[in-house]
């Protein structure tokens, strides 16, 4: 099941980083355990007494010198490219795409992400019961979406706030952008008014 654009917009994407780190962890665990099993002698004392760099393996590599060198170089280059991709992917900041309303050459019309998030934020903060609001554009240029974080005051009626947001804030955003659907992810923090301090 592929996630919808608005579901993806809920939080910064993170699956690849987490998955790859998990795989590296798995590989390290497996390698460590196998080496430990060999060292303890569960695969036999002969195995445990052999050198780590086994002469048999070295001899085999020597007999197949050219293919093994080619394989080593190819694997090295692939690992290098993959590692650089992974590194850059982990470092890159989350996109803030501008929303292109009209892509025709000569009459392109683009709304910058800052403009749209500022407008939606101001609108949302004017809703009764919303203490604070933050909005930003997320996703990529092809599938832009809006992420709206709302901090509701203590005791505010969630449904009333929600209707207000949907009927006015998001409807106005859609209208002013001239789109029928604006994928939106809303994160709500409930009861987060000013804290009451004991004096």
């Amino acid at each position: 099941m592929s996630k919808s654009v608005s579901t993806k917009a809920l939080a910064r994407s993170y699956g690849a980083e987490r998955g790859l780190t998990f795989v590296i962890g798995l590989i390290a665990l497996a390698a460590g355990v196998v080496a430990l099993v060999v060292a303890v002698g569960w695969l036999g004392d002969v195995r445990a007494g052999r050198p780590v760099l086994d002469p048999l393996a070295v001899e085999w590599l020597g007999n197949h010198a050219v293919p093994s060198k080619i394989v080593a170089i190819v694997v090295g280059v692939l690992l290098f490219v993959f590692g650089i991709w992974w590194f850059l992917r982990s470092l890159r900041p989350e996109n803030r795409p501008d929303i292109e309303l009209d892509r025709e050459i000569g009459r392109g019309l683009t709304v910058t992400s800052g403009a749209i998030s500022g407008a939606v934020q101001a609108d949302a903060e004017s809703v009764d019961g919303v203490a604070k609001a933050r909005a930003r554009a997320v996703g990529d240029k092809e599938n832009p979406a809006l992420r709206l974080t709302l901090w509701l005051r203590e005791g505010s009626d969630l449904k009333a706030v929600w209707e207000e947001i949907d009927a006015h804030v998001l409807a106005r955003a859609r209208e002013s952008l001239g789109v029928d659907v604006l994928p939106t992810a809303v994160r709500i923090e409930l009861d987060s008014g000013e804290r009451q301090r004991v004096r």
Partner: protein
Amino acid sequence: MRVFVRLLSTLLGLVVAAAGGLLALEVGWHWWRPADAPLLLPWPAWRDRLSELTWDRSPVPLIAAIVAVAGLALIVATLSARRRTVRMTDPATGVSVTTSPRSLARLVGHRVRAEDNVNGASVTATAKKVRVRATSRLETENQLRPRLRESVGELLSEVPLARRPKVSVVVDSPKDRR
């Protein structure tokens, strides 16, 4: 924890890239000019050392254990760094809503503390389960628990959650100890 995993992920990416690059470089250099090898790493010394060292000699098991533990730590870190947000029902197509477990707990906590004869309450919440621990000086657990459970259930049915969490209520009352 998620920031930590992101940091680890960045470092591991760099390590993989460095390892791959060095492997390709050293093998290629050795192939091109066997006489000038090694280029950057003293790998012939490593090779000689490894061909003497047997599996059961001292640093090998220790290093294996360290690698295994480090792998396990990575696995634990990635597994515990999952998202814990609570999904709410989608109010319209193209709109998704979540809230934080902390918000849900806060909401339930306010309701529970507003009940009569409740002196204090602590609440923990996940998308699947809401745990309430209330203290009361005036009512016993059997008196207070059904009321609290009903009240929390009513509150949760007002909040449009995607799946309704189970509610467990524990009351700590001095009256029960007599």
